[in-house]
């Protein structure tokens, strides 16, 4: 079946349907990872976004039970150059195509994804629509212009958990962790209670915390600070998530509350941006964001380079930082802020993904730093 991708700037691509039939809309972004499409599909931070893989051959190793970052695919739509009809891996449970169809993800294949990527790079991310079947491109283009902008929209409320729960690793998880994960630098000296704010949290963050010896309770995004503190956590974790941080005002307020206490706090991605906002900084939208597994980040204290996994469209404005918040990490591609630390509170955060999945494991040491803070 035919499919069309239309963009707000008036361009459109003719391709073939590669997932569920129908119609989907969202912000079109590109990801440069060469592997890990299943982790990307299931990462809640992609809510509301149509993701283009720059790597041309997608679906080769199918989908596996344990390579998910949440219960289901979270992307609004998916774009590929060439989708594999077969799944070739001993862990594969089925083909990517079936997986997308089963979960009702509209996807398009066989288009010039590099041309699309270059467009997004130079014009910035755009609103777009994928529609299958025979449709008039001009109409689609029109429609794209009615899609709500990312800026100012709170997408967290749609992806956060409904009620608090305690994280338990499944056996399959544990086995895979043992085979493919990396040994934590160390485990907690005693079981540490970590309260994790779920703004769209990735499974692997929970797995890494558990692997480091933490007992994790996951709280809905809107949980008042007081309720979280009532659980007497040793540390508070602020998760990744989708959309514009500035729009998640309730979270910012809660973090302000928490920052009055001395409970160690660690934030990743959206959590990092929210912490920045709570501490008085501003955030802004990047032209085309950072999405991939090869971004070099410099740790300013040591000068060491980490190759990082990234997925964000907004960033913290360094010039807006209060004097008691310092930049700890910088992106070597464009000099944007990659890490923050409070000078007199045990609060720190990174813009990128130390839990990887997908991506390199270079930044796993940050979980240990979180342990250090909690054990002080």
């Amino acid at each position, binding site marked *: 079946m035919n499919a069309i991708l239309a963009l707000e700037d008036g361009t459109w*691509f003719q391709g073939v349907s590669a997932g569920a039939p129908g119609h989907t809309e969202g912000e079109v972004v*590109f990801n*440069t*990872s*060469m*592997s*890990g499409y*299943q*982790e990307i599909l299931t990462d809640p931070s992609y809510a509301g976004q149509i993701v283009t893989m*720059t*790597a*041309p*051959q997608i679906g*080769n*190793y199918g989908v*596996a039970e344990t*390579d998910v970052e949440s219960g289901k695919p979270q992307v609004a739509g998916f774009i590929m*150059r*060439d989708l*594999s*009809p*077969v799944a*070739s*891996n*001993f*862990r594969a449970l089925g083909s990517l195509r079936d997986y997308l169809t089963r979960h009702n993800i509209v996807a398009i294949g066989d288009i*010039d*994804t*590099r*041309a699309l*990527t*270059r467009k997004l*790079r130079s014009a910035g991310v755009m609103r777009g629509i994928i529609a299958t079947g025979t449709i008039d491109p001009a109409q689609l283009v029109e429609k794209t212009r009615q899609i709500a902008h990312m800026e100012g929209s709170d997408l967290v409320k749609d992806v956060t958990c409904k009620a608090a729960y305690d994280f338990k690793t499944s056996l399959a998880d544990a086995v*895979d962790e043992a*085979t*493919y994960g*990396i040994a934590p630098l160390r485990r907690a000296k005693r079981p540490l209670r970590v309260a994790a704010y779920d703004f769209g949290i990735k499974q692997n963050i929970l797995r890494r915390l558990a692997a480091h010896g933490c007992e994790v309770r996951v709280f809905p995004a809107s949980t008042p600070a007081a309720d979280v503190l009532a659980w007497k956590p040793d540390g508070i974790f602020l998760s990744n998530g989708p959309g514009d941080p500035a729009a998640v005002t309730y979270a910012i307020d809660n973090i302000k509350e928490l920052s009055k206490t001395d409970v160690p706090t660690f934030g990743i991605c959206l959590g990092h941006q929210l912490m920045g906002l709570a501490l008085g900084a501003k955030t802004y939208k990047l032209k085309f964001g950072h999405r*991939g*597994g*090869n*971004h*070099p980040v*410099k740790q300013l204290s040591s*000068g*060491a*380079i980490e*190759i990082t996994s990234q997925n964000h469209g907004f960033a913290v404005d360094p010039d807006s930082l209060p004097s008691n918040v310092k930049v700890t990490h910088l992106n*070597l*591609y*464009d000099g944007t802020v990659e890490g923050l630390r409070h000078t007199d509170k045990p609060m720190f955060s990174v813009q990128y993904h130390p839990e*990887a*999945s*997908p*991506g*390199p*494991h270079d930044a796993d040491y940050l979980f240990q730093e979180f342990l250090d803070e909690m054990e002080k």
Partner: protein
Amino acid sequence: MIGSGPIVIGQACEFDYSGTQAIKALRAEGLEVILVNSNPATIMTDPELSDRTYVEPLTPDALEKIIEKERPDAILPTVGGQTALNLAVTLDELGILEKHKVELIGAQIPAIKVAEDRLLFRDAMKEIGVEVPESGVAKTLEEALEIVERTKFPAIIRPSFTMGGVGGGIAYNLEEFKEIAGRGLSLSPVHEVLIEESVIGWKEFELEVMRDGADNFVVICSIENIDPMGVHTGDSITIAPALTLTDKEYQRMRDWGRRIIRRVGVETGGSNIQFAINPDDGRMIVIEMNPRVSRSSALASKATGFPIAKIAAKLALGYRLDEIPNDITRVTPASFEPTIDYIVTKIPRWNFEKFPQADRTLTTQMKSVGEAMAIGRTFKESFLKGIRSLELGKEGSLFRRPAADGDDAVTSPEEEEAALRRKLVVPNDRRMWELFRALDLGWDIEKLHELTNIDPWFLQQFKEIVELRKTAEMIGLRDMSHDLMRTLKRAGFGDKELSEILGVNETAVREKRQELKLKASFKRIDTCAAEFESFTPYLYSSFEDACEADPTDRQKVIILGSGPNRIGQGIEFDYCCCHAVFGFKHEGFETVMINCNPETVSTDYDTADRLYFEPLTFEDVMAVIERERDGNVDVSCVVQFGGQTPLKLALALQEAGVNILGTSPDSIDLAEDRQRFNQLLWDLGIPQPASGTATSRAEAREVAAKVGFPVVVRPSYVLGGRNMAIVYDVATLDRYMTGAVDVSHDRPILIDRFLEHAKEIDVDCVADATGTVVIGGIMEHIEEAGIHSGDSSCVVPPPFLSDKHVATIRDYTRRIARALKVVGLMNTQYAIKDDTVYVLEVNPRASRTVPYLSKANGQPLAQIAARVMAGKSLAELGVTDDLTPAGMFVKSPVFPFVRFPGVDTILGPEMKSTGEVMGGAGSFGMAFIKAMLGAGQRLPESGAVCITVNNDDKNDVLPIAQGLVALGFEIIGTRGTAAYLRAHGVDCSVVYKVNEGRPSLADEIVNRRISMVINTPHGRESFFDDKAVRRAAMMAGIPCITTITGAAAALEAIRALKTEGMEVRALQDYYSAVAANQ
């Protein structure tokens, strides 16, 4: 800096590429670079590239002399392949480094040892919890046998410290095991082999990784082998990036990579790490790590646009990755991991047809002589482009009907099935073609996976290709829809392949395609999947919507490269292409390079102004030309420098209206076409061996009768003496004619009178449009005519030629060049017999000897030729007199025999050498011995020389025997030769021939009783097996000289060695000495 020496299997021009990059990087840092490399056919040995250039043997004593002379602060051993690495280790062990206070940079001795010594490596890996195959190290056969008890069969046998797996192999039973282990022990420089548990059939992967002094680590590229474990990576079809790994699997591999490079202790630079993964349960083990840039890192550099060798050199100087900018994006640093949005396929090229007795099975020992790389947006596109890049002609077509196959046609289906199974189970150079044939016959993926262990994902892709082919065939060209044609082109089908499938000619397909408005667009290789703008026009074609070529409106010239290395067309031609680029740049042209060989300097993105990494076919070249024309300037094309590959395209391109610079395609054809050429020489009154052409036995007999035996027979239009034979009698002639493949009236068999015991001479010259001809050099062959020019040693200036003949040769050369209206280079081969100079052949193009002459003269011949083609006259360039060498320079070939057990080492008119070295000195003898040393032949200074020659040679060998005696050698002869020598007063003892009795000559060689053999063949397959003698000698590493002239040269060399003693001298010094004298 140490280079990698001559081109051999497993070590080709990739090290010229990495070395050249490293030199540029080091000099850019203001360092003084001293280069040592025995291979003159390299860009890296260009005198202007380094401060001091030593084209000297890569031996410890040569190196020590150079170190004494130059007093370097450091040695960089990591960009010269295994050769440089091993040499560095030896220098250290001999205490030479310490004695002269030279430090090693890039890799330290302990790191090299851990990585190269299989035992140390295994233990180091176990230490860091990295899995390796079960294994044990043996220094004797007994130990080996004990170990294999544990590790079981099949057993992998790998000698330590050999490159490309020389002497290694897979043994399935005890017999094989004893043979391979024995060979391995003798071939390993440290006489040590590793016996290893086999993981044949597992998936094989490679990581190209880099580390800097601050312990920053990046993966540049992941490579997946389509051929599973058991086939050497150099013989495997490989792709980048890895396509069948989940992120979980890939990240584990990356984590291991970091741990391994740390543990091995490569502080800075690039390394290559090989992994195997069990497809059934994901179990991963590490196979080996190479602590240096390698063939794979050259591939990775071309595949990603990340210049590994250049960066490695900078890291060795202490830079950190984040301090080095990425040339391509400019804004981002080198401390990142390239991400690519296309698929790269590398396909090896073998030359088995030249070694009929060789075993074509692919094992752990590399056998391919070259490779082609192709880039496409999908695997299919990339793979099919790769196949056509190989230039295999009919042989290369994946789509020939089984019927069209010569070998096992007309067999029953059962036999066919069985035969096919066998060819699929046992890896060999034709397996991919057999696989397509099986798919054609409808074999399913499960079955094929079972037989080949190739990952089902690839098999699926191949199946889709076959299905597309069938659809196309069914629809036919006339009814082909836009969609189908688009799908076929996007899947990588070339017009030529389609024309074969559809049974029409290529033009028809081309026209249909144009009518459907389908043309190639071009994408950039930018290291970042378009995340950032790219500033280097490094391009590949694809049938996509958007084109990123944006050609300029500068006056431009397109230089066609020489494609994959093969015997007869190797690095020499890439050297010439690079110099063509330099020449045209000099003349203000924008230079555009098209080539598909990833090992080369010409495909370095900063050699030409623009680089198209594309197959060298009519379609692909025209696509580039048409795109470049959009810059609204006329585009000219140069076909003279890349050997036969571009030459074959010349006429077609011209017919398509492309302006060919330099010698006209018609003149090229005139030189190639027998009738026309004979006529020309006749008119010029220049002698040529009597000749004729034949298409049948009868005709052949007639011609032979006319010209007289012996004759040289060969098919028309061949290169490297393919299928060429010297025939002494009618019976053999008949056999040849019967055996000869595709003979037709426009492709007859050429029959020439064979000039026996004739001296052969090679001449290269450059001519301009005004008719000025400058002779670059007159190269006198050591071996006589009958041994391919590429296989015989030669020397400039000609020490033994009479002035009369030299004058004649100059005169003939000038007249032929003018008659052919040559503008650019021309190579001529002469033979002198009975005081007459005959022309053997004329090639109006760059030749194999151009780089060697350029080094000998200190004049870049190819560059001068390019500037002449750009319109300059030789007068304007200030070169009007014939060039003269700055000393005595000998060029000697290097052969791959050691890799092909059972192959005779005897030389003939069919070229067999893979590379060459140069030796320079004041005297012929010394130059010759240096060349010998460079080629790995250590001539003895004492001991016993065994002489066994055929009757014709007996009286010529006498003075040589006397000379050897005078130098204190003991002479041993086989019965006939000994009798003759004794009769002429040479005292010598007798040894049995093989099959005559024991201990035979072969035994004595094995027993190290003999230090040199002089053996001229006793005619075809004589009962007394000379072949065994020659092999024994080669395996024992003692010189075996198979021609009288060669023996004479060796005698003079040994004399020089004993009287003069070896000296080293930089090219720059040779040249300045000459300059001083003028």
